[in-house]
């Protein structure tokens, strides 16, 4: 069943004030969608509706279709858990286990029949993937609860991408996690998942193929990213890289130059007012 997700569709409900949402948005594997809007505009509600596979029975009145159909109740309330994975800023590891034990336990509950070598490989691949996202390497013997914020987030993402096998991934704010966000999204999207992420981060928002704009609890617009925005994204990524480079130098205890940016070059390219 897990492999059979060809699409999810969000059918509009209404905003907090009861205004109808004129939306029928169909997403397919590989789609990366940002959910943007001010704090309190209903981003988490939208993700919650998808997680719940709402059938016009949540406060928003939205309806979520799986493969163009309302899901059967057993999929909605039982299997639905394996359909949709969630990542959010306030999630933690609480289990008293090492990284390796934890991956083993997760594999066991996913009913993945691996031999001992298969399990070794799986642990290796999850840890390796996680380490691509964070500067502080994780080793399989580390207790989960001893992981830093960035390490935890990286492990969660790697685990979600590789082990969770859920075709739909919902992300609520991952920006401040101290990880390589672009890589993180690439890992998730490359695994042919449908990824929706609520974000205030301009780079993450523009990395998405489209973005859902929320206002007072309702979907106000769905925008496709265009060429201008792709150009802007490139500039923002350069700026981001510059800031990261500064951070790295600071970490290493180096002295810094007077500017992280080459403003003359930016001005020459018409990015900055001269």
């Amino acid at each position: 069943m897990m492999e059979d997700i060809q699409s999810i569709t969000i059918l509009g409900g209404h905003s907090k004030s009861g205004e109808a949402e004129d939306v029928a948005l169909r997403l397919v594997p590989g789609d990366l969608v940002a959910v943007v809007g001010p704090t309190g505009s209903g981003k988490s509600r939208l993700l919650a509706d998808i997680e719940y596979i709402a059938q016009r029975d949540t406060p928003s009145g939205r309806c979520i279709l799986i493969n163009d159909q309302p899901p059967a109740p057993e999929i909605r309330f039982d299997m639905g858990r394996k359909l949709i994975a969630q990542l959010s800023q306030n999630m933690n590891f609480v289990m008293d286990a090492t990284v390796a034990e934890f991956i083993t336990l997760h594999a066991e509950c996913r009913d993945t029949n691996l031999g001992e070598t298969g399990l070794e490989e799986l642990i290796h691949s999850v840890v390796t993937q996680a380490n691509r996202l964070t500067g502080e390497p994780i080793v399989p013997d580390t207790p989960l609860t001893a992981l830093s914020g960035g390490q935890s987030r990286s492990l969660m993402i790697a685990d979600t991408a590789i082990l969770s096998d859920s075709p739909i991934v919902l992300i609520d704010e991952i920006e401040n996690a101290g990880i390589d966000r672009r890589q993180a999204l690439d890992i998730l999207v490359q695994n042919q998942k449908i990824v929706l992420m609520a974000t205030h981060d301009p780079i993450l928002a523009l990395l998405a193929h489209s973005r859902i704009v929320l206002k007072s609890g309702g979907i106000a617009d769905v925008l496709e990213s265009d060429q201008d925005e792709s150009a802007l994204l490139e500039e923002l990524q350069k700026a981001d890289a510059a800031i990261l480079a500064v951070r790295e130098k600071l970490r290493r205890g180096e002295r810094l130059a007077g500017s992280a940016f080459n403003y003359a070059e930016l001005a020459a390219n018409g990015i900055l007012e001269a």
Partner: protein
Amino acid sequence: MKLITVAGPPSSGKTSMLLRVIDWLKEQGLKAGVVKFDCVASKDDERYRAKGVPVLLGLAGNLCPDHYFVTNIEACARWGQSLELDILISESAGLCNRCSPFIRHALAVCVIDNLSGANTPTKMGPLLKQADIVAITKGDIVSQAEREVFQYQVRKVNTRAEILHINGLTGQGKERLGALLAQAEDIDNLDGRKLRFSMPAAVCSYCLGETRIGHDYQMGNVKSIAIPDVPRPEVS
């Protein structure tokens, strides 16, 4: 009137969850009330009262909480009927993991939270095993993988219950739980009904107020722990 028994460890989020579900039931035009059974102290009755939910509070004090429950639930049900409730929810915390307050044909809900540890489901006994619905709370603060592992552990213990994930803060999941409560069987009276699981075998001298330690002070139903090579005195 429907009688629903809801039980789970302290601080697993029972009251928060029930307040959300009762909101939903109200929206459907159903009137719900609560009996809160606790051992030592509870302020949960105030939370229900603040929301306009009719509530009774029963503290077992120095009695076995399950005995206290079973000897009082019938009168509580009559109280619920006198208020013309559609649904009476009996909520109890703690207990001893040896028994459960679940009654045959009265919908039984076990509440357990993701933070309680992956091995907790196997330790909960009939409280989890005999439930019709298992509501798992606090899923928003643990990793996806841990939620899955925890649900898997719950499923191993209880193979038939519907497992729901409920967020007591946002109310996420309340619609499904509410719908299941609203569909529960009606129960007119409890006289002669049966518990789903027997109470612990009593009674020993300590049940009757003995506090001294020692062979001479032990009477009644006493069970010795197995310790190799240490002779144990016979209990009279």
